[in-house]
């Protein structure tokens, strides 16, 4: 919807953004060809999780934080558990427990990326209102997406004990480790999922897309020799290279009047983008061979700064996750114990992992007995909000000649390039929005 005032002004408003997780809205004001204002409004009722967690026991973090997001609970459980472990002097960096964490996280990437590609974003590129129309004209494609999501869900449920808000995750690992036989039941579905992922790359590669280059600092984790999922150093393509503990010294968050979420900036530099584009550009060399080949065949360059190509990158990450999951399942031997000992102590801990949508940071301050004194949770979409708004501005500047309906669709598509999960991003105090 839009209105045109007499002075050559146009205002585009989408009061309710569809096909994103959570609730959000977009506001753009044009004066002639000049973009006067661009705002991404997030008004999902804010979550009070940072406040909820104060006074709770350190052991409760995985269960409570998981409820911030129904689509990426593993991300919250992993970042949260690692932060508590860090506070207690523990770091799970290898061995079967680490493998299980990566494996269940692969499951989350598979189901989240599949949902995004088929249900949330492909319809934009094909001019469909939703996945329903896509299913009507291309039922096999829809079935492919559903099958991929189902396999991701099965993997999460098998290790996590339940599909949403997995109950088997704990500080130090798991309550129960699956048997080898249990994991092997997923070998065939994962092999099929790998084929379906490769088909997804081919499908995404032939979608019509604008040729846009965006210049924004890219930030993600970098792990020793694996594509980043569950741990790593924080790096950027403009020289950032820090331990998770240095997050707050390098990144600041500010309340913005028009949104319930906080805006993040790199100190003295500004907006940054986290997520698949950042991971792809900064950790390309760590992609598994089958994923690299798929990227090459899809026509992706070594460097990719076109946000509209994020959908292809997500498909490449689908391939990587399926291939890694297959390897982890094949070589799995149950650990002696499903969790390592984590003894509470006074102090501060930091944990970062790569949710499907990008880097997720947790920080906890504990008392001697492990009571949580303070909690800080910085979701990826919250970190991306400024970069997404800047993207929107660039899209509007480029496409202002389009009529309002077409421009609005282009803008929505541009927001969905970043797969925002607005449910995650607003878990802080409510702000008053003035118009």
């Amino acid at each position, binding site marked *: 919807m839009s209105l045109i005032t007499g002075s050559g002004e146009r205002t585009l408003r989408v009061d309710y953004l569809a096909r994103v*997780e959570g609730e959000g809205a977009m506001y753009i004001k044009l004066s002639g060809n000049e973009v006067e204002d661009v705002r991404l409004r997030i008004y999902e*009722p804010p979550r009070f999780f940072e406040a909820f967690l104060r006074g709770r026991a350190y052991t409760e973090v995985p269960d409570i934080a998981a409820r911030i997001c129904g689509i990426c609970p593993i991300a919250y459980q992993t970042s949260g558990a690692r932060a508590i472990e860090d506070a207690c002097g523990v770091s799970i960096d290898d061995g079967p427990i680490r493998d299980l964490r990566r494996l269940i996280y692969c499951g989350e990437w598979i189901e989240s990326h599949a949902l995004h590609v088929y249900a949330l974003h492909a319809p934009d590129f094909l001019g469909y209102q939703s996945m329903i129309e896509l299913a009507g004209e291309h039922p096999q494609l*829809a079935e492919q997406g559903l099958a991929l999501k189902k396999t991701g869900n099965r993997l999460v449920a098998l290790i996590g004990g339940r599909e949403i808000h997995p109950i088997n995750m704990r500080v130090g690992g798991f309550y129960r480790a699956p048997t080898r036989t249990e994991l092997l039941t997923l070998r065939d579905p994962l092999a099929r999922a790998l084929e379906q992922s490769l088909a997804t790359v081919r499908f995404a590669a032939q979608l019509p897309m604008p040729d846009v280059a965006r210049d924004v600092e890219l930030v993600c984790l970098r792990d020793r020799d694996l594509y980043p999922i569950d741990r790593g150093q924080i790096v950027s393509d403009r020289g950032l290279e820090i331990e998770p503990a240095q997050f707050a010294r390098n990144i600041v968050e500010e309340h913005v009047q028009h949104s319930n979420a906080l805006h993040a900036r790199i100190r003295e530099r500004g907006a940054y983008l986290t997520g698949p584009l950042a991971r792809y550009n900064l950790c390309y060399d760590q992609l598994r061979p089958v994923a690299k080949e798929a990227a090459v065949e899809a026509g992706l360059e070594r460097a990719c700064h076109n946000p509209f190509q994020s959908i292809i990158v997500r498909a490449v990450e689908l391939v990587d996750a399926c291939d890694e999951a297959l390897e982890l399942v094949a070589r799995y031997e149950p650990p002696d114990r499903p969790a390592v000992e984590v003894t509470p102590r006074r102090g501060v801990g930091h944990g970062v992992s790569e949710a499907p949508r990008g880097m997720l940071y947790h920080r906890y301050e504990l008392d001697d007995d492990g009571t949580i004194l303070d909690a800080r949770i910085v979701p990826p979409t919250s970190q991306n909000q400024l970069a997404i708004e800047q993207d929107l501005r660039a899209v509007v500047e480029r496409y202002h000649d389009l009529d309002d309906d077409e421009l609005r669709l282009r803008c929505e598509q541009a927001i969905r390039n970043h797969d925002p999960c607005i449910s995650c991003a607003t878990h802080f105090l409510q702000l008053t929005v003035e118009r």
Partner: protein
Amino acid sequence: MPADATVVVIGVGNSLRGDDSAGLEVAARLCGEPRINVRMSEGEGIDLLAMLEGADAALLVDAVRSGATPGTIHRYDVSDEPLPSSPRRPAGHAIGTAAAIELARRLGRLPAKVVVFGVEGERFETGSARSPAVQAAIEPLVAAVRRESRRLLATVAAAEPECGDRSRGFG
């Protein structure tokens, strides 16, 4: 309906968002009832599709916001036509209940008989309790869903009940 037919009751909602928890509460109270398979969903439409799989009939229970008096119980038979567009739960998800039903229909996966029960809500803030109006509607809604499922299963032999809230995935 064949002798081994199953009815799935799917409670849809969010336990942290006030009246949005009503669907989950109704479904939970039907756990263990003979011949009813219960599933819980946060409303992620794609997952609803998976829950519909293999069922001969499905009853969905959800909160809605349509402007009616809070606590009003709506019943929609969507076996042959979509949910009306105005009653809509506050959509926190990419594909909501209505879209999931149409997607299933388009893919030939919709069970022969699907009924959606909606309870009109008024309080959806994160962390809030259910409003008194919706709380008062819970038991009548449970009774309505129970009646509807028994009506559908009137000619069917007893089957093993399943409760979707127990942890699955382990032997």
